[in-house]
């Protein structure tokens, strides 16, 4: 086995920022190679160089011993490279099958697209990924988890020589992830596919990877065999110092009820959902994708009107008709999908960060540049946002840093209730702890927090109480202290006997 992909002295500069600095390492044929690093370390940039999105400022990539120049996405595909990018670029207005065969010759018969062939092949693929969807469904109807699986499926379908996955599991549940593992392992075994894998869930790297390369601030640190590493080793290498991940959970729950959801029902989304949130409480919502968690959150926030049900804030019945109403009642929501629902691509980092806090930077009717800059500086340091120049467009930030901007914005709004939907999607270990710390701190001030997360360890370490949903209904409740992954999963799957116990 020799080096299959070689990076030699790769440097990539964006104006003043150096995203990659003289990076050299090798990936061997048929291995699963993990790429680890903090937010903004340069992982996606390296991948974009392989995908023909950017060209290196300096340096050379070799594939199979030959120097290659990858100027376009097409050239990258010709080299047998298939990439699942961090942000999902699917055509929302097209069907699953159409997306899978987008710009592909396989489905073209003469002048026409062979719809039957496309749908049959897509159906097989969906089955392989255990997705209960029809090939003719529109992508916009799918959850983000399903969209990311479609992305992975699309990449795998063409039997690539090199498969690159940039945080493919950020939105997936454990089950979906296991299915993906199986597919990737099969590709490696049967076709000697070489895999480059990026994930902030280090346990995935430990489980799946053969070797890992660590980047820090755009520089190559080391490449090691995974079996010689522990997760703590990787973290230390990534951050360049030891971090303490064993912070103990404290509870700040007070007696006053902050919010009460009563009998929220919406056809085909959720049914008779009722719960209370106390001041200072961190309440988790667990369940599989499609269990209706996001729908419930958006219903509280006024972005998705329930068919029936009532919402009480501090004992008073309120009618939240729109997100603007919710914000007036001091409710914040960090949405699940930062690109579509959180960020405005045409605006700068600073403008995006200060979207809901304009009142705090106004002098009379005018927005004040000084106040705005001061607030930005504070946000960047509180949330460890790595942004060269805050007046650059938001898309120049790495994925994790974009997510931090969304979080910073909503907490700066001083909510009394904070709804979070997968708040740490794409955020690195160090910054995750920082954000957990911030959430605990605002909880200690009496703010109530509801968190939807597919990462059970996150919920278990953070929440005072966890509600589990299954097919739109709350099927169980576990206290934060006695919560275990297995216990939660049982409710989430609504296993028969436990279900009955839960009702008693």
């Amino acid at each position, binding site marked *: 086995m020799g080096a299959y992909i070689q990076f030699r002295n790769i440097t*990539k500069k*964006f*104006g*003043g920022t150096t995203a990659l600095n003289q990076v050299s390492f090798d990936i061997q044929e048929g291995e699963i190679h993990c790429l680890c690093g903090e937010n903004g370390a340069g992982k996606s940039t390296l991948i*974009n160089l392989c995908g023909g*999105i*950017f060209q290196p400022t300096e340096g050379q990539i070799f594939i199979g011993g030959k120097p290659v120049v990858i100027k376009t996405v097409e050239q990258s595909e010709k080299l047998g490279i298939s990439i699942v990018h961090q942000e999902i670029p699917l055509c929302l207005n097209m069907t699953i099958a159409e997306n899978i065969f987008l710009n592909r010759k396989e489905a073209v018969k003469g002048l026409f697209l062979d719809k039957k062939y496309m749908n049959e092949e897509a159906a097989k693929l969906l089955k392989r990924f255990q997705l209960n969807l029809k090939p003719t469904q529109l992508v916009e109807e799918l959850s983000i988890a399903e969209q990311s699986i479609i992305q992975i499926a699309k990449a795998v379908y063409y039997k690539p020589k090199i498969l690159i996955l940039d945080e493919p599991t950020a939105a997936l549940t454990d089950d979906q992830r296991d299915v993906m593992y199986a597919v990737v392992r099969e590709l490696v075994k049967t076709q000697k596919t070489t895999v480059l894998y990026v994930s902030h869930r280090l346990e995935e790297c430990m489980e799946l990877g053969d070797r890992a390369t660590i980047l820090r601030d755009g520089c190559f640190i080391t490449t090691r065999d995974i079996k010689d590493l522990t997760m703590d080793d990787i973290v230390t290498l990534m951050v360049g110092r030891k971090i303490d991940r064993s912070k103990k959970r404290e509870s700040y729950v007070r007696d006053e009820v902050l919010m009460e959801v009563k009998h929220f029902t919406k056809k085909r989304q959720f049914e008779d959902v009722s719960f209370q949130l106390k001041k200072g409480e961190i309440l988790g919502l667990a369940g599989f994708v499609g269990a209706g968690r996001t729908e419930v959150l958006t219903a509280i*926030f006024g*972005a998705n009107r329930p068919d029936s049900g009532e919402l009480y804030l501090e004992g008073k019945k309120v009618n939240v008709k*729109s*997100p*603007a109403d*919710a*914000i*007036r009642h001091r409710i914040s*929501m960090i*949405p699940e999908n930062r690109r*579509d*629902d*959180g*960020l*405005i*691509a*045409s*605006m700068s980092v600073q*403008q995006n960060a200060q*979207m*809901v806090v*304009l009142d705090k930077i*106004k002098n009379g*009717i*005018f*927005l004040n540049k000084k106040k705005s800059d001061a607030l930005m500086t504070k946000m960047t340091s509180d949330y460890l946002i790595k942004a060269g*120049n805050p*007046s*650059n*467009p938001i*898309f*120049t930030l790495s994925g994790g840093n974009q997510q931090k901007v969304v979080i910073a*914005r909503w907490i700066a709004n001083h909510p009394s209730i904070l709804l979070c939907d997968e708040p740490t999607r794409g955020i690195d270990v160090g910054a995750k702890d920082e954000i957990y710390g911030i959430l605990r701190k605002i909880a200690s001030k009496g703010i109530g927090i509801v968190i939807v997360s597919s990462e059970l360890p996150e919920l278990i370490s953070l929440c005072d109480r966890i509600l589990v949903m299954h097919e739109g209904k709350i099927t169980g409740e576990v206290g934060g202290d006695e919560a275990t992954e297995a216990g939660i999963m049982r409710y989430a799957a609504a296993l028969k006997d436990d279900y009955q116990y839960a009702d008693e």
Partner: protein
Amino acid sequence: MKEKLKSFRELGVICVLIALIILLTIARPVFISPTNFINVVRQTVQIGIMAVGMTFLIISGEMDLSVGSIFGTTGMLAATLYKSNVNPTVAFLVAILVGCAIGLLNGILVTKTKIPAFIATLGTMKIFRSVAYAISGGQSISVFPESVMNSWVFKMGGSLGPIPIQIFIMAVIFVVAGIVLAKTETGYNMYATGGNPKAANLVGINTDRVKIMGFIISGAVSALAAMISIAYLGSVPTTAGEGREMDVIAAVILGGASLSGGRGTMLGTFIGAMIISVVKNGMVLLSVPVFWQDGFIGVVLILAVLLDTVMHRKDSRG
């Protein structure tokens, strides 16, 4: 510094404008004479004022094809009222309010019934063109009573020293609009609405209200442009404002706004409007047949937008 210059979005169009001015001055030195140049700026007023409303709208992700018809309808309406000796101030206000009302109608059609702006305003464009003809009976309207001609409404067509008053009006409108757009929450909300309506809605911006406001402003400034035009010309031609919408949209796009929303500035739009009147004036000076005017504006439009994409491709691709 270089970074700063690069992020200065209007740079491209400013270059185009300066190049045009230099070329025209070389070909016809009279172009740069104060009289002619003031005339060029005055010719910018109509398109410029209407383009202010269009800029708000295009930034918010919408557009308004009915501005020319609003110009026609409100112009004919005011002229008829002037002729029947209604108090000129009242006539003026009625015309502006009718402009606002048509804007409101456009806004409601687009936001509440979800008809795309292109179609909704194409519809109202046709409707109010007919209304304009109906008001005037298909005739042009001119010769107004003495009392009206002496009122402040007609002073808008006059001059202050060598400079037409309408230039001052345009300047004030551009400055106020520029400040609103760049420095207030209203402007911010417009950029957000055009940039990503879903996300804007989720941060609590009432995107429907932002758009309706844009349509109302667009209707109001179109009516104002009509009032200035009557005051200056002393008449309203039968086809007043016909085809104007395309010049107005061209000015906004020349100025760097994006039809997909979220991008654009008032300075850019002003330069865009200037380019159009410089081209028109230049063609006359060079005695190029009038029918070439539109063609040449088309060429400049495509070249300027091309220049803009080339200059800014870098930062989006790395």
